[in-house]
């Protein structure tokens, strides 16, 4: 117990995340209808995010779809989290977890079906691996000198193997993994560990561009003005008939699914696909 407390004291944010994983899992798995419980607790679908529930971009990273899913992510968190928290510091690590979880959610909002449900912290875990790669790149004599060492090479292999597994398993959302990975890498490379010496004009412009890109994509997830689900919702809430007609037409042009095509007077949506999760 003392050893556990000592380790928790050394990496408090990691242990808080782990505690949150377990607590939320106990609350959701204990329910007779875990799917509804997951939805209430913070499961993410692009359509829900676009309808104003933006907090789901973050909360989905603390929910898990089953005991195996939970154990897998928990072990990965306890493996990489303490190391990274020790290197970055607790505050930066917390920011990294939150931003990479949002980055994973943003990637899903951009590329997945609007009704696709996503749960799991694996996007943020991939973000941590991306951050570790960025720190290795920044820490060496030059950006590629880390490849001379076995540890970082194994980390790259681990990322590649996990991405391949993600492609092979249909229930895994590799989009979230890639989104988290890129977000973690870019945040650490440009934000947390920007390299030695004063920044050049190019570096400043690129850093500002990456930040603007992240904010812009987050805004797109909240107001995806050319996605059929958002257009449909806008059509059902607008009072102006001409505008409503335009919005329905735009929704149809933007790929409104045919089987459950709604009646414009009722505004119902088609059936959603089955939920996806992390590893």
């Amino acid at each position, binding site marked *: 117990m003392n050893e556990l407390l000592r380790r928790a004291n050394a990496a408090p944010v990691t242990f808080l995340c782990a505690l949150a994983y377990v607590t939320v899992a106990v609350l959701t798995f204990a329910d007779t209808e875990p799917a509804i419980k997951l939805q209430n607790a913070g499961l993410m679908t692009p359509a829900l995010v676009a309808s104003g529930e933006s907090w789901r971009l973050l909360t989905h990273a603390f929910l898990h779809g089953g005991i195996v899913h939970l154990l897998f992510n928990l072990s990965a968190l306890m493996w990489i989290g303490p190391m990274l928290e020790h290197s970055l510091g607790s505050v930066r690590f917390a920011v990294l977890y939150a931003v990479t979880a949002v980055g994973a959610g943003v990637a899903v909002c951009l590329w997945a079906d609007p009704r696709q449900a996503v749960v799991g912290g694996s996007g943020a875990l991939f973000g941590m691996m991306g951050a570790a790669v960025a720190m290795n790149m920044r820490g060496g004599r030059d950006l590629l000198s880390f490849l001379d060492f076995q540890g970082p090479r194994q980390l790259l292999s681990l990322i590649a193997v996990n991405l391949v597994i993600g492609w092979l398993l249909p229930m895994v959302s590799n989009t979230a993994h890639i989104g988290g990975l890129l977000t973690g890498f870019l945040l650490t490379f440009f934000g947390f560990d920007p390299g030695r010496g004063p920044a050049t004009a190019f570096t400043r*412009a690129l850093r500002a561009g*990456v930040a603007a890109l992240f904010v812009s994509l987050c805004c797109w997830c909240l107001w995806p003005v*050319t996605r059929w689900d958002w*257009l449909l919702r806008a059509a059902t809430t607008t009072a102006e008939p001409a505008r409503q007609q335009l*919005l329905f*037409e*735009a929704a149809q042009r933007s790929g409104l699914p045919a089987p459950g095509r709604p009646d414009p007077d009722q505004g119902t949506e088609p059936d959603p696909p089955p939920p996806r999760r992390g590893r």
Partner: protein
Amino acid sequence: MFRWTLVAAVWAVALWPLVLFLVYLGSPVAAVQLRQQAASWLQTAALAGAALLVIGLLLYPPVAAGLRLLGARVLAALRADRGPLLRALGELRHVETAARHGEVGRLALQRRELPLAIAHLSRALELEPENPGLRYQLGMALLAAGRMREAAGCLQQVVAADPGHAFGEALLQLGRVHLLLGDDQGAVALLRRHALEHGGSRRSHFWLASACRAAADPDGARAALQYAASPPAKNQRLTPEEGLYRARARVALWRTGAGK
């Protein structure tokens, strides 16, 4: 150029949602159409680019050689460390010497930070005007910055003071500068002298061929191109730059009808 293209691309992607939102305010249908049109254009451009790349790789030798050179340069850029340059700049705060300015200039030139390189190499030459090494570095920095006449002056002084400087590279670059300035006869003379004294390379013979062609000497141009296009010896692997010049020489030979 490539770096700023990357910055522009990142900003363009960042502004794209805003553009769609502004169009949406006017007409939702137009916004959807714009997005679909952009996606279609992107898809077509990607397919066309991939097709051109495959055709180029199969039929046009400079494409493969150029890709190899691009890869080598990207790796070199990733391998470039700014630490030594910052250390050299830090050392200058204590004592100012020509050697320290020269080191800053050399490292800045390596990193293509040309204004910094030119400033420090110029100061180094003020402190030590007879140093051909510093003058050669300044000539190369001026050449990279496109200041041809000043570069020619520098390299001329280097060749006069030390004819074999940098294993003939100063002479070769002087010939190239003359070619770029339009002094074709002077370029031919300098590049021939380089070939005689230092043996030449595929790069130097490609430039010699260009100078001969400009000086209305087609036979000389063809002979130089044939040298530049010659295959490497067994077990010899050309550097990426030499490979690109060989590929370009092969294409130039095909164009002149002198065979493959």
